[in-house]
């Protein structure tokens, strides 16, 4: 299972997730799609299609929205937020839009325009 429920003990404290206590060496990804989502978000940032700050801002927004719900959230899947943030940042930067100009082409145009070389 990839979901976890927030639970409370008799004193009203949030109970620590079992895996925190019992197994500090859990796999980094539980499903392969999480690994792909991670790699895709990092790759697009590393190749300057957007800044990591842009992606992280969307990730924070997505998690904030989830955490600010009135009721105690019943399930949690970190990489759902990751995928939501990825979709938004790809959309905002127009990566899939017709006529998108990638960083390499942009650099090339700059060099040409300003005769840097």
């Amino acid at each position: 299972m990839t979901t976890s429920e927030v639970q409370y003990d008799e004193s009203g404290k949030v109970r620590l997730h079992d895996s925190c206590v019992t197994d500090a060496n859990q796999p980094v990804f539980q499903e392969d799609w999480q690994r792909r989502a991670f790699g895709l978000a990092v790759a697009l940032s590393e190749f300057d299609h957007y800044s990591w700050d842009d992606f992280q801002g969307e990730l924070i927004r997505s998690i904030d929205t989830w955490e600010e719900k009135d009721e105690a959230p019943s399930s949690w899947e970190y990489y759902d937020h990751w995928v939501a943030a990825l979709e938004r940042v790809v959309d905002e930067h127009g990566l899939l839009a017709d006529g998108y100009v990638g960083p390499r082409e942009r650099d090339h145009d700059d060099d040409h325009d300003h005769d840097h070389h």
Partner: protein
Amino acid sequence: MTDQFAYPSDRESASAAKVQALEALLIEKGVITSTTVDKVLGYFESEMTPLNGQKIVARAWVDEEFAALLANDAPAAIAQLDLPDGMAGAEGEHIAAVVNGPGVHNLVICTLCSCFPWPVLGLPPYWYKDPVFRARAAREPRAVLTELGVPLEEDTEVRVWDSSGHSRWFVVPSRPEGTDGLTEEQLAALVTTESMIGVAVVEPPATVGSNA
């Protein structure tokens, strides 16, 4: 619980399908190639591992000057070591070290988005991103540390560091006693990822493996 947070049974496959479709579209549009994501993942999984953090901590234990630089300017200190290329990328420029010592124990969390010093520690363990862990570690770090088996003296100060995009903290744990005769390499092997997050202490070699 209300239905507000009901977890659709197909959510898992929905996210998986979204990622697959997005990657395929980006390849089709020529934004990335079919090998781009694998290359990036391969680099992370082979080069950005806790082995880097272990080497950094061991050097700090044997070299006071390095330890001082690490505390003040972690990227500059890390650049002195023979670590994989690209350590400065992948958010490595935001890495900062906090040092455990007598009376001080540091714990690193990220309350917002699970920022993590990838180049030093690799990718975070899954529980690090659990909201329960994050919330409790922020609110009652001492209780959480006790449950995780980290014994702290009453007068030990616990400092909780909230990682963000601009400061990705890692902990330089205390060097265990009884390690005077060890080489830097042997010392590095004692250092665990958990100790560099602050949810464990480094055990002296005599007790390693005996707590199963």
